[in-house]
């Protein structure tokens, strides 16, 4: 009974529709990868950024170092972006 149902679905979709669906899934996967890593980066930067602003407010010389520390979590979103690009173009 189940085998018959699967056959029926397969028969109902053209090759173009299946390809479009797969592309859609890839796009969805890429979106989720970039979106979630973006949220992760945001959370990480919240703490580091507020501490960095606090430190710079007290000592201006810390600006360069503080900026460097603040952007370190950007790597997380870059990983997400790489995964997204791989999904879309490979």
């Amino acid at each position, binding site marked *: 009974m189940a085998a018959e149902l699967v056959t029926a679905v397969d028969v109902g979709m053209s090759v173009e529709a299946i390809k479009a669906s797969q592309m859609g899934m890839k796009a969805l996967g890429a979106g989720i990868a970039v979106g979630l890593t973006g949220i992760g980066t945001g*959370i990480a930067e919240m703490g580091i950024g*507020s501490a960095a602003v*606090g430190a710079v407010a007290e*000592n201006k010389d810390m600006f360069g170092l503080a900026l460097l520390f603040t952007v370190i979590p950007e790597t997380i979103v870059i990983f997400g972006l790489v995964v997204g690009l791989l999904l879309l173009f490979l």
Partner: protein
Amino acid sequence: MVGVKNISAPYIYVCTRMRVRKAKLLPKEEYMRMLNMSLPEITRLIGETEYKQEIDELATTFKGIDLIEVALSWNLAKEYQKIQEITPGNLKQFTQAYLRRWDIQNVLTILRGKMQGVKAGKIKEILVPAGSLDANVLDRLLPEESIERIIDALKGHRMYPVLAREYPYAKESGSLSRMENELYKQFYAEILAEGEGGIKGGNLFLDFIKLDIDIKNIKTLFRLRADTFKEDARDMHIIGGALSVTNFANLNNIDDQGEFIDQLKAKIRQKLLLSLLEDMRTEKTIRDVEVRLTRVQLEQMERMSKRNPISIHPILVYLEKKKYEVFNLRALARGKESKLPSEKIAEYLVV
């Protein structure tokens, strides 16, 4: 996610600022250098640090020890007011509550000054307007002729009921010590109630206050032991710490130093304090005991702030450390002014 939900960006911002400020406080080596300097050299050195602005502003009006005294008081008040401005939400409430102790100190300084006939200008030099009574209110109190009028001018302030109740006794005895005890008791009762009020972070605030109360009670016990005449210990006990009134009174009645230390240790939990008390089995001078207790208190507070880096602790630790930096510099300057030997001055420093 728990950490993210509980810690907000403004808290991290303020706690970091406090830690940076704490790192800028004078290190021990600097005090050791100052011990070998003369008063003008100390003034110049202080003028190159965080106190530069105050020293520059006041240098035309004051000289010598007065310049240092006023500059330190101004800097302390400015620092405390700035902290109240930048602290957010609950932290602000706790910080303001903690800084209310300066109201007691300022009002008592004015009352004592008036009782001894000191000029208003001289009293003003040592006031630190860091609590709820700002510089304008204190300026209005200073020209008042009599103590009754000063107390009346404070009508509506939380200290007024205690001041009005205790003044007749103070007038009769000529001493404000009982009034001071009562004001501090009221202050601690109020801040304990504030910490227990169910506000987020209240527990951490309470830990800090309870440690403060414990150290204060232990200092009082040692002072009472060093005292030649007997006083009622119950009047001097502050409620809220590890020692109950009964324990406090019982401890005060123990004459043997070893037994006193054993009984006291049974009531205390902090390891640092326990090892310090062990050292105190041999009789020491009251000044030595107080300085060492203060050092332990600061050390314990520092540990608490490291355990809870994003809480009220880093702020309160900075407030305390800044206060002791000012006390140390004042002690150094006064010691040099009185031509005390460096070793003697070093005993008074809390580093």
